[in-house]
């Protein structure tokens, strides 16, 4: 009995959201086939991005709001690859190769910055994302076509500077998903994409069994003890962010090859928020995140996303309500998780202080 209780209390968040999702599914009254298609598509798109968050959590840096930088690296590579007309799966792989050094550079800079803001990595990471977004817009909305000569009718409208708002990615659209698809009814399961996600999950699992993975864990548990025992804390923290940023860049490419169009100026804006909300809904916290939680959370969050508009239509007579509701859930879950975490660590600190005083 106690075990059941513990199981429930440990998984309270995913259970709660499971119930909300079930209610949503019930009220949305969507055909099962359609729902399956939606959820398979969304899982294939987003799982990689959510998994990219796990390593910094283990290294004690909290939820990496800076994965926006990785997404930007992916998009910059994609803009260049569209310019050079790379196509097919080879083109996509080449784009991923091109994105990697960019993401390493961005991740390195981000890691250096976060080392100057220990204890407030999350807010710094978030503001860093906004800042990088501003620079990205400055480059691609102003410099391109004025200072940087760049004439390509697919990417630019010649009358005004800057790239087009939407860029057609039909050259690489579905190149990864389409290698091997298994059909079930209307639903196409993109087997290779799921295989890539599985390989990443396995790689993260294996990584935590290496020496470096254990060092990350040690840094995450206590920076000072790790430092005293001879681990280079700052270097490890930078490395964790670099890995996360590179994974996010690849994740954004997987996301965009599925969608097929690049919204030049806002495809990346919500990447951090939505991936983090998904991870938290799976039951992860600021200090602990597992692969299972990431995948479970992606499933629940995107099920909620898929059913909200229709459920809103049935319950409130307005699909708009459902759409606002899901955004509210995304922000709300982050706010609640952060607050709970701060609350718990505060009472833990107080408990240890009282212990010190009494001993």
């Amino acid at each position, binding site marked *: 009995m106690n075990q059941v209780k513990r199981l429930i209390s440990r998984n309270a968040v995913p259970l709660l959201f499971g119930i909300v999702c079930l209610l949503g599914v019930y009220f949305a009254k969507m055909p099962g086939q359609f729902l399956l298609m939606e959820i398979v598509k969304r899982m294939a798109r987003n799982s990689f991005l959510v998994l990219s968050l796990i390593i910094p959590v283990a290294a004690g840096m909290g939820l990496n709001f800076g994965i926006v930088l990785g997404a930007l690296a992916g998009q910059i590579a994609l803009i260049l690859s569209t310019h050079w007309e790379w196509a097919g799966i080879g083109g996509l792989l080449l784009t991923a190769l091109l994105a990697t050094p960019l993401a390493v550079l961005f991740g390195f800079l981000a890691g250096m*910055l976060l080392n*100057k*803001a220990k*204890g*407030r*990595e*999350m*807010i*710094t990471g*978030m*503001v*860093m994302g*906004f*800042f990088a*977004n*501003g*620079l990205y*817009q*400055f480059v691609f*909305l*102003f410099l391109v076509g*004025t200072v940087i000569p760049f004439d390509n009718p697919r990417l630019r409208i010649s009358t*005004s*500077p*800057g790239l087009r708002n939407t860029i057609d990615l039909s050259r690489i659209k579905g190149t990864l998903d389409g290698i091997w698809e298994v059909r079930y009814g209307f639903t196409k399961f993109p087997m290779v994409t799921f295989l890539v996600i599985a390989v990443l999950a396995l790689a993260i699992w294996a990584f935590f069994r290496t020496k470096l993975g254990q060092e990350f864990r040690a840094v995450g548990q206590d920076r000072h003890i790790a430092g005293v025992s001879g681990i280079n804390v700052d270097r490890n923290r930078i490395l964790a962010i670099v890995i996360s940023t590179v994974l996010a860049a690849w994740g954004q490419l997987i996301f965009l090859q599925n969608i097929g169009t690049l919204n030049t100026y806002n495809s990346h804006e919500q990447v951090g928020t939505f991936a983090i909300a998904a991870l938290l809904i799976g039951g992860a916290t600021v200090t602990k995140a597992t692969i299972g939680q990431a995948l479970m959370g992606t499933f629940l969050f995107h099920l909620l996303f898929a059913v909200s508009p229709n459920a809103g239509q049935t319950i*409130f007579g*307005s699909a*708009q*309500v459902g759409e*606002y*509701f899901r*955004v*509210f859930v*995304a*922000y*709300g879950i*982050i*706010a609640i998780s*952060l*607050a709970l*975490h*701060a*609350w718990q*660590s*505060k009472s833990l600190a107080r408990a240890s202080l009282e212990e010190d005083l009494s001993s």
Partner: protein
Amino acid sequence: MKERLVAIYHGFGLPRLIIAGFLLLLLIIAGGTELSVAGLLSDALVRIGQNGIYVLAMVPSIQAGVGLNFGLPVGVICGIVGVLVAMEFSLLGFSGFLVAILLAVPLAIGAGYLYSLLINRVAGQEMMVGTYVGFSVVAGMCIFWLMAPFKNPALIWPVGGQGLRVTLTLADTFAGVLNDFLAFEISGLKVPTGLLLFYGFIAFLVWVFFRTKAGVAMEVVGRNPRFAAASGLSLNKYRTLGIIMSTVLAAIGYAVYAQSFGFVQLYNGPLMTAFPAVAGVLIGGASTREAKVRHAILGVVLFQTLLTVAMPVTNQLIEGNISEIARVVVSNGMILYALTRATGGDQA
């Protein structure tokens, strides 16, 4: 003489010297083009008065030790509700503006108190929790705007009879009541006297507060919590007071902003209000641990003038609207700078 110059330099700070120098450069460039410098400065004065109270709202929260108030939208939403109710009853001119404020302030006191209950329990993570509480409140209110029982046809969608519009105009009710009050013009420079007087009055009230006993106690709580607790001050009491003051200022700030801007933007409109305000007070020389009224005033003057002047001048040089991007880069760059400075604080 030299020492005095050095002292002035240290008091003013390098970032502000750079920004002021850049501003001067922009104004000189503007003088060389067909742009009217007086017109630019008139716009800047309006923007300063319009955003000033938001920036001022950062002062009590920083001084009470809560850090930068990223939860500003909590107060802004209260201001919006006040303005909407005044519009619902078609109250015109000053009565509309005053009713909006009278409604918004008690709402903001209540909301600020609830917000402080949360924030006082998450000491150390106030900024991050505040940001996402602000975002959630804005997103949750989106649902409210859709379902709220407003009936005035000027506010709701023409079809369906329910749900507030995305953008509402104040032109028929109380747009510009402060801006036009005693406004005058000298050689092209329009001065929105009422707006600036009201801003000055609010700034003066905040300044006076920090000279009262409660204000000094709040500053001690923020600066040195251990010392404050040892001398018998209740930390939570002053932190709560600081958050409520900040929320109330945000609500008043919204009413002032709306009457000057002339429109109410609902739904995701207030989502990012905290960021320019946070950047403003930091540009003025505040840190995450210390902020004075003069920092808020200097910051809003420099930041808003920069944004107003930069746009038309750069438009002469390159095409396109650069002001939005300049705002994003400058404000977030400034916040990053403040967060990564080794101040010894550990707020997140």
